[in-house]
């Protein structure tokens, strides 16, 4: 067990190191000078040069990489070129928006998708199945920014129940902050729910075709009992895999929804940092995401080992 866990952990650390090198070099060769961008079209060459020096951009690439890597090990992600504040603080502020948003959307989409998927699978081929899957197909097809705008016009512009966008900050109060996340999480959750419902249905149908299900039915269990006791549990594995992928997407891939609702989330931070060539911020966020993914994978690997004794014995 220990050797399996150690091996997994070592692989994770090695992956992180390789990722840091790839991320750093790839971003550093992107054309465009953050100092020139900051000072604009009228700037004199010496002013640009002075700012490059202030930003530490005139040092050789290797030195910058190792000082950045050294910082990473101590939790120091460096200082943003544009904002001139620690990257760590910037990310912390954005995670305080993106994480709750991702969590609420995920919870919402699961709450919608699982019952719909199970219902559709249990009524396979009937009209209600076709209807549910038709609606889900539409949910996949409708662009979420368009759906988001529709929500804004109904609930913010016409009914004025919630703000059209923005995030007041958790310090402004739990209620108002939560309220500003309602529409964005619905807009994010519905397309995800549509995908998840379809996956749930097909996973369940596949399991329902297995031999052991027939055995269970032959033993005299009702359709319902088979569905919930034997099929659902096994069908949950692909569903959980999709959920994990969706969570990673929701954390940083929600830039379009963040734009429509002008939310200060991680996605917009990365986007803005790329256009402003604030590369140290991009590097910081990307490393954070990679680390999160690796950590999740590591936990999954370890939990497999805990569940499946064959994996333990093999090493």
């Amino acid at each position, binding site marked *: 067990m220990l050797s399996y866990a150690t091996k997994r952990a070592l692989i994770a650390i090695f992956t992180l190191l390789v990722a840091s090198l790839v991320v750093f070099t790839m971003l550093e060769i992107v*054309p*465009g*000078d*953050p100092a*020139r*961008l*900051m*000072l*604009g*079209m*009228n*700037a*004199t060459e*010496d*002013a640009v040069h*002075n*700012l490059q020096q*202030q930003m530490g951009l005139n040092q050789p690439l290797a030195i910058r990489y190792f000082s950045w890597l050294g910082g990473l090990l101590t939790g120091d992600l460096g200082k943003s070129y*544009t*904002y*001139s*504040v620690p990257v760590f603080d*910037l990310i912390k*502020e*954005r995670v305080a928006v993106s994480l709750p948003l991702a969590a609420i959307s995920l919870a919402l989409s699961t709450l919608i998708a699982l019952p719909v998927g199970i219902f559709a699978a249990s009524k396979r081929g009937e009209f209600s199945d076709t209807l549910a899957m038709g609606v889900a197909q539409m949910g996949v097809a409708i662009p979420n920014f368009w759906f988001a*705008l529709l929500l*804004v*016009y109904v609930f*913010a*512009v016409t009914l*004025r*129940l*919630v*703000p*059209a*966008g*923005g*995030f007041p*900050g958790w310090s402004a109060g739990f*209620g*108002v902050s939560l*309220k500003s996340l309602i529409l964005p999480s619905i807009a994010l959750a519905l397309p995800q729910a549509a995908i998840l419902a379809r996956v749930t249905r097909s996973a369940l149908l596949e399991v329902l075709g297995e031999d052991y299900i027939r055995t269970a039915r032959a033993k005299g269990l009702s359709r319902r009992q088979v569905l919930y006791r034997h099929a659902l549990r096994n069908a949950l594995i692909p569903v959980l895999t999709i959920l994990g992928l969706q969570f990673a997407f929701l954390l940083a891939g929600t830039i379009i929804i963040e*734009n*429509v*609702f*002008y*939310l*200060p*989330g991680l996605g*917009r*931070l990365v986007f*803005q940092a790329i*256009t*402003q*060539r604030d590369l140290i911020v991009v590097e910081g966020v990307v490393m954070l995401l990679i680390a999160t993914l690796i950590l999740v994978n590591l936990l999954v690997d370890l939990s497999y080992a805990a569940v499946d004794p064959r994996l333990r014995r093999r090493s």
Partner: protein
Amino acid sequence: MKSWKLVIAGVAVSLVMSSASYAAKTDLVLGIVLEPPHLDPTAGAAAAIDEIVYANIFEGLTRIGPKGDVLPALAESWTQSEDGKVYTFKLHKDVKFHDGTAFDADDVKFSLDRARGNTSTNAQKGLFAAIDTVDVVDPSTVRVTLKQPSGDFLYNMGWGDAVIVAPESAGTNKDKPVGTGPFKFNSWAKGSQIVIAKNPDYWGKPALLDKATFRVIPDPAAATAALLAGDVQAFPVFPSYESIPQFQADPRFKVVIGTTEGETVLGMNNKKPPFDNPKVRQAVARAIDRKSLIDGAMFGFGMPIGSFFPPHHPAYIDLTAETAYDPELAKKLIAEAGHPDGFKTTLKLPPPTYARRGGEIIAAELREIGIEAEIIPVEWAQWLDQVFKNKDYDMTIVSHTEPNDLNIFSRDDYYFNYDSPAFKDLIKQIDATSNGAERTGLYQQAQKLLAKDVPAAFLFQLPKTGIWDAKIKGLWENGPIQANDLTAVKWLD
């Protein structure tokens, strides 16, 4: 079951109640499209910085007023020597920075010397190039000696880049700006909003608002929704031209289409064949129908220009006829230049919609006279690197939004690669002239020369599309500089 219904009803009622509590009439929420990178106007070119701090938080010796005129600010008055080289500024007394430190002549010397010094990162260092020495005569008097007379000096001192900062806070202004203005910095939630509050100890006429919030809304559709929902009450530079008619028809809003200093041009590389031939440049300019360009790319907002000068300036002359739309003449010119069958070229377009949409229309119009322009979209960072710095381009579209920037055509090594001794001489004369009538004459000569030489095709002046609640008064209608001066803004009862 019943209790559930009660809970839902309760939530609905509380949601309605909380959104019904409108802000008191001394705060204002303004929408801005771009978030500033930081808040120190002496260390960055982004207009978004000045749009928050100019005249509100920071002040200079002089300031630019809503009509583009030079007004006194921290300097209550000044005198100029006979030879035009020595300015003596009388400063306001009892002025304090927001952190409580006193303002005096030493701060002026510090700020000007810092901006023009060896380690300066001022984006407009050129504004201070004429200064020879800055001397403190007494705590409320500063004497600035110039190397040569400069007609623009007082105007230059009114730029956001020339504001007066204190040595105690200059290093931290990026994150916590400390100025002398009628508003103090309050908070900045990055990516979301910046809040400024009234400075109760202001030396001059106090602000009428208690609090102003600048909310960052980059998406045009979101900007429209935010105004309609009442989340923001003013959008001084509204980004979604296509939604403007909707607001014009709505009596709750006031829509003001003003002018700016943004001359939008089709830049051509004057040293790169075939654009080194003035006939080719004229042909390109003649091939463009400014009206269809403004209608198509700008939804009709924007004023056609025939040279590089803002239409609201007293010295402006309309030269659009010099290069009026004439595709037949354009074809003739291009044949005379030795390209009877046209040629292939490229058009690099930065991200703003005026460039991307405008570029497509212009490329289509150029095709009519045989020029095949391949469109290459670029990011700002790439544009600055490839087009601006390395001059690796054939044609590009960009708006020059800085005020008083006629002299860019006289700069060596500027991206147009335009090199005209006659124009350089005119700019030198303008700079050395402070007499109004004489300057006007020289400005007009310069405009005519550019309209004739066509170093770039002059397209249109960017509009300032302001939309705000009809009950708000005092926001600037025009944009002589990129600022949101809130000092006179108030809500009507």
